[in-house]
């Protein structure tokens, strides 16, 4: 009886893990099978053409712009907020409000951010469809991610470091940037990488704020099309599954590279500590 139950539970664990792994293999495998043949230097490095034999260079450039801009906006705000919540704030109404706000922001579907950005940045602030509107919109999307991960990273810094520094007559701020932040960097970094993944994968919100212009953007005030939006439009308008899958391959490789970088950097920084 005890053995039987044990075996059932064990099987459930193995089956679930198997299911996850198979799903993963099938999805990634499918995207690669469909998409790999479409990948060649022309596809990756030449300008887009309406005739169909161009490449995705403008989308790659747009994606990079969007990632850099949104990270540049969200990271400082996110990290500073997390520091406030974790290191300065005392328990109280304000902190509860901020925590609730960030948690709610994290739970809102991106289509709602899209609606918001589409009115607020695009129309009200007059930024029109532009990389800037899109980036600011996704900056709000990733803000809670960065706040959360930074908070977690700060939490893992041993209290003993803080006490040691303060006991030497350092101020809280000195303690923060000399001892706490350096120790928390690996964690913060992984939050940023996670956010980059989120920005890269976003379509609904970007579509409604950055527009869909399939051209090499000149400035951040231009409208442009990210890789993910391009993949979406290819599927939706042309039914070009293979094209979308090719972009999928590019994106998966991009995400893979980013994850690896994050791990390596985190490890390096950790090594420096131990």
């Amino acid at each position, binding site marked *: 009886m005890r053995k039987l139950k044990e075996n059932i539970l064990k099987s459930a664990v193995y089956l679930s893990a198997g299911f996850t792994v198979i799903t993963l293999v099938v999805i990634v495998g499918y995207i690669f099978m469909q998409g790999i043949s479409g990948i060649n230097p022309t596809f990756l490095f030449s300008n887009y053409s309406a005739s169909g034999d161009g490449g995705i260079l403008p989308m790659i450039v747009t994606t990079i712009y969007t990632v850099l801009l949104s990270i540049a906006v969200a990271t400082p705000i996110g990290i500073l907020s997390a520091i406030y919540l974790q290191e300065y704030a005392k328990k109280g109404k304000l902190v509860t409000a901020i925590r609730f706000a960030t948690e709610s922001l994290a739970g809102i579907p991106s289509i709602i951010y899209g609606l918001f950005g589409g009115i607020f940045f695009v129309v009200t602030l*007059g930024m029109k469809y532009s990389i800037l509107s899109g980036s600011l919109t996704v900056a709000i999307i990733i803000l809670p991610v960065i706040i959360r991960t930074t908070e977690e990273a700060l939490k893992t810094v041993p209290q003993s470091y803080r006490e040691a520094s303060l006991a030497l007559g350092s101020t809280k701020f000195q303690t923060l940037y000399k001892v706490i932040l350096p120790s928390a960097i690996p964690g913060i970094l992984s939050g940023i990488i996670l956010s980059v993944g989120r920005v890269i994968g976003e379509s609904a919100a970007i579509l409604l704020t950055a*527009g869909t212009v399939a051209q090499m953007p000149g400035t951040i005030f231009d409208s442009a099309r990210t890789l993910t939006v391009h993949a979406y439009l290819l599927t939706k308008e042309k039914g070009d599954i293979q094209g979308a899958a090719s972009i999928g391959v590019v994106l998966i490789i991009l995400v893979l590279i980013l994850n690896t970088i994050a791990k390596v950097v985190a490890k390096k920084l950790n090594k420096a500590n131990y």
Partner: protein
Amino acid sequence: VGCGSGSSSNDGSKVTVSGSTSVGPAMESIAEKYQADNQGVTVEIQQVGSSAGIKNTIEGTSQIGMASRDLKDEEKNAGLKETEIALDGIALVTHKNNTVKDLTVDQIKGIYTGKITNWKDVGGKDAPIVVLSREDGSGTRDGFQEKVGFESEALTKEAQISDGSGNIKTTVEGNENAIGYISYGYVDDTVNMLKIGGVELTPENVKSNAYAIARPFILVNKEDSMTEQANKLIDFILSDEGQKIMEGKGFISIK
């Protein structure tokens, strides 16, 4: 934040166009040629849907709107100028294996209003019909319903709604029971294109009104947001060269 207006970068060398996803691809080709001919000019094309394009034009976010349907009264009242730039046949597409190759407009209406639900009733094998439609508001859908002769409310509740011609095509390609409609410009050999009342969808048949389900593509604009380049762009589309490009994309010249 708050860098006032992005349009500050618009010194007249940029023409902003937005709207219908059916017109979009042809406009991209037009823009490519136009930019090549007029160095320093950029033509920005947003494919966001007919209504959004019209709304953008009214609000001034775009100079030119692309629509694949006629304007609504609300929209007409906003003081928009319309220019017809091409005709488009709306193709009915089915799976390659489907033996039905020809339907009358009445049969199509029957299918889309849910009165005909089995392929055997229109000469095919005994199988349920899976009806595919575009979303409410789509120019293609408006044009289709108008020509076939029914209103949105009458559309069968069973209809699958796909956003975009591509999704309709992909679905039809994978489902033997499906029928859908897409813009002529998007038809390719992954699907089977039906004759309507024995008439095939060709540019000639659209021009001669022999093919029943066709609609105009129009551009809209507000006079006060037009620049010289924007006007020149519309002229270019209407020129022989412009119309040729439209034809190359599968649309039908208005000339």
